[in-house]
């Protein structure tokens, strides 16, 4: 298993398994509110502009929620109801604006349910039948039946399939396990999908979202995730010279490098403003193509990136903003929060020269996990179910998924294990580094004021009922689902099913 073994770990795990949690909870007085959540920031400029007025208004409204020693628990039941309803009962005409994003709806709701501990395996068959009409005759997936293929549609479709097939198959004997995966993935025309992705490749090394569509790093990240999760190997990506094909990933790393901005953050494409969403795309994409401490230092100015990333967390709110001088928003819990796992892995790789996990040389948590958890639990839960951007905003399926994913990033330590033994089927994968991630409930303690690390951070999850599932830091789906799909491609290729 992927847990780090130490005395604290078993203690915490024991706690998770214990019944009568509410008992134990009532005995413990709530921790006092940290000073940073009790008032406005220490320095406020006199000059008021639209930006500062909006910021002040948000800080004041959020203060009412975060300045309370009783941090709410995660109300899983109402959130689960909120997320099951659209899947089972469908959506009203008010959602017509999402008609070109049908796979997204499935992914957001189903992955969020998995995060909340729901066994979503029962949806697998219906996921397959819902997605089949979206496969385009010339390859790829559209946002709905008859729609043109789109990178984001294929991305969300594949993620959903990987999640539900994992849940449906996880307790089955090998032959039936194979049956589930064959049924879930056998109908995808991998060759045509690859041919279609080739048509979106740009001369500058990046990708566009579809033929005739826009270019941004989101398209490149989605393309890599699709290729990694559908088991394409080096030979397939190299291309067929007789068809005048070039290696599909040529120029991509340097393309990403050009997207780092003067601020240290990363934009949608060269010269675009640094933005949390695009930063996540590039960091994850880089980590799919190499070891964090290599790729994040070779293709980024990591120190500048970390400085920009760190500046995304605000007090008193505790949450993240997506850009400089913009407001906090719950969905950046994933886009910014997710970057931290990758950045910490790189920082640790540099410190310990990549010799696996050593708590004493660990740089520790570089960000404020508790503050984010407080923002999420106190501000992002709608009392009627679902999660949201901030108080006063309506909850939606997108925010539900990405707020919960961000909570998972705050509660767990996701780390890169370069000593991990990989099945031989992955050895020939250009994305093998993406399969070396593990999780632990124990989070290395931040450095002390003397700048020294060591030990575990305590009290990250003050109530076990607020704990969400572990996710893969690059793919944003349940961690173990990733190993399973990889195993499937090994089996499928070995058995020449393909």
């Amino acid at each position: 298993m992927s847990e780090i073994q130490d005395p604290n770990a078993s203690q915490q795990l024991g706690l998770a398994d214990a019944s009568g949690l509410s008992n134990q909870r009532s005995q413990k007085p709530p921790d006092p509110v940290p000073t940073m959540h009790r008032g406005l920031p220490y320095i406020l400029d006199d000059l008021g502009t639209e930006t500062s007025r909006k910021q002040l208004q948000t800080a004041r409204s959020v203060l009412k929620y975060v300045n309370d020693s009783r941090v709410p628990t995660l109300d899983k039941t109402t959130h689960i109801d909120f997320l099951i309803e659209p899947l089972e009962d469908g959506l009203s005409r008010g959602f017509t604006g999402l008609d070109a994003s049908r796979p997204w709806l499935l992914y957001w709701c189903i992955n969020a349910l998995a995060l909340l501990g729901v066994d979503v395996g029962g949806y697998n068959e219906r996921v397959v039948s819902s997605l089949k009409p979206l496969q385009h005759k010339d390859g790829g997936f559209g946002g709905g039946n008859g729609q043109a293929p789109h990178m984001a549609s294929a991305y969300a479709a594949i993620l959903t399939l990987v999640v539900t097939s994992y849940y449906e198959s996880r307790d089955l004997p090998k032959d039936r396990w194979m049956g589930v995966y064959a049924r879930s993935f056998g109908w995808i025309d991998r060759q045509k999908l690859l041919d279609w992705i080739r048509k979106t490749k740009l001369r500058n090394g990046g990708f566009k979202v579809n033929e005739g569509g826009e270019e941004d790093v989101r398209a490149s990240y989605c393309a890599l995730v699709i290729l990694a999760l559908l088991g394409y190997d080096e030979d397939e990506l190299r291309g067929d010279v007789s068809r005048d094909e070039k290696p599909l990933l040529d120029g991509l790393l340097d393309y990403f490098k050009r997207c780092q901005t003067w601020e240290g953050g990363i934009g949608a494409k060269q010269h675009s403003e640094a933005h949390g969403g695009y930063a996540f795309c590039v960091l994850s994409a880089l980590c799919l193509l190499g070891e964090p401490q290599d790729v994040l230092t070779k293709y980024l100015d990591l120190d500048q990136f970390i400085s920009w990333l760190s500046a995304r967390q605000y007090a008193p709110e505790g949450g993240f903003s997506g850009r400089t001088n913009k407001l906090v928003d719950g969905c950046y819990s994933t886009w910014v929060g997710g970057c931290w796992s990758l950045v910490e892995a790189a920082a640790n790789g540099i410190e310990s020269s990549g010799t696996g996990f050593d708590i004493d040389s660990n740089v520790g948590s570089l960000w404020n996990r508790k503050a984010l958890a407080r923002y999420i639990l106190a501000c992002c839960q709608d009392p009627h179910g679902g999660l949201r951007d901030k108080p006063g905003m309506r909850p939606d399926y997108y925010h539900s998924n990405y707020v919960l994913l961000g909570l998972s990033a705050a509660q767990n330590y996701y780390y890169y294990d370069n000593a991990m033994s990989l099945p031989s089927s992955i050895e020939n994968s250009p994305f093998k580094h993406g399969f070396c991630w593990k999780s632990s409930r124990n989070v290395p303690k931040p450095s002390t004021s003397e700048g020294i690390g060591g030990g575990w951070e305590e009290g990250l999850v003050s109530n076990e009922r607020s704990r969400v599932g572990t996710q893969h830091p690059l793919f944003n789906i349940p961690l173990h689902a990733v190993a399973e799909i990889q195993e499937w491609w090994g089996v499928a290729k070995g058995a020449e099913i393909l």
Partner: protein
Amino acid sequence: MASYSSEEEEEEELDYTNDPVWADVTPLPQDDGHNPLAQIAYSPEYTIAMSYLRAIMAANDHSPRVLNLTSDIIGMNAAHYTVWGYRFKTLMSLDRSQTLEDEKIGWSWRQELEWVQSIAKRYEKNYQIWHHRQLIIDHLDDPTGERAVTGEMFALDSKNYHVWTYRQWLVQRFQLFDEEELAATASLLEEDVRNNSAWNHRYFIVLGRLGEAGPEEGVVERESELAKEAISKAPQNPSAWNYLKAVLRKGGIELATLKPFCESFAPILSPDEIKSSHALDILSEIYDEAGDSVKAEKALELLASKFDPVRKNYWRYRRRLLGSKPTPASDTPTIQATA
């Protein structure tokens, strides 16, 4: 034939089933698969329009009526990238056969652009609208009036990412690195000195576009003065500080030259007089580079304990890294200033 759906005419509903214009088309229903999840209960109007679109697309029909059909659907779902894409192909096909500016279809590129702008104002967060506009302007090879169009959008939201992406494309495509562009960023910063998108655009047009090349003489001085002035107005504004640092980096000027400026905003021996956490941040770097670890530590500890406590772990990580950086002389590549 009815004209092609501008705002006013939208009220006039399209009647696909009875209008003879559509009589030759057999609508193609949507296949949602068996027992689908998260089905959308479309309005009857949307369902019908979409089934005509599917039929039209299957026949690869790019006749003028497609403009009616696609604007009808976009009015109900502006994020429908397939419909936008098909509309653009149709416009191009009509353009090629020289029917687009023809009196009898009553539609032109100009009208298309106006219609697109009306949609853009209704749906501010949308990728497709601006991409569509980009394709058209690229084809027309004429940026006249386009800066004003983005200006209208900035009046609604001066940080709209899609609009800024379009503006950058426009500037690059038509080489608009001119006084007007510089003045536009200055005026947005005048309105709100914290508008980070405007700072970003300014960096792009002044320095970012240069790539590896160095800036012209006087540019670095001008831009750092601009940033310093902005900082004096609002010392806790991160955009201006970041800009200042970036300008110096691009100009190959050492950070240490900022020491007196930063110390005027953050005297670490009189914490009560500190007006900017960003000045403290830069000072810790400057002190570290100068080998003054005591002061560097002090600056970082002030940030961790008082001025930016939510980032305490980061400031302590920085403390951990003190003294580990190579000296600036050996580290910073010297960027050649043009003579």
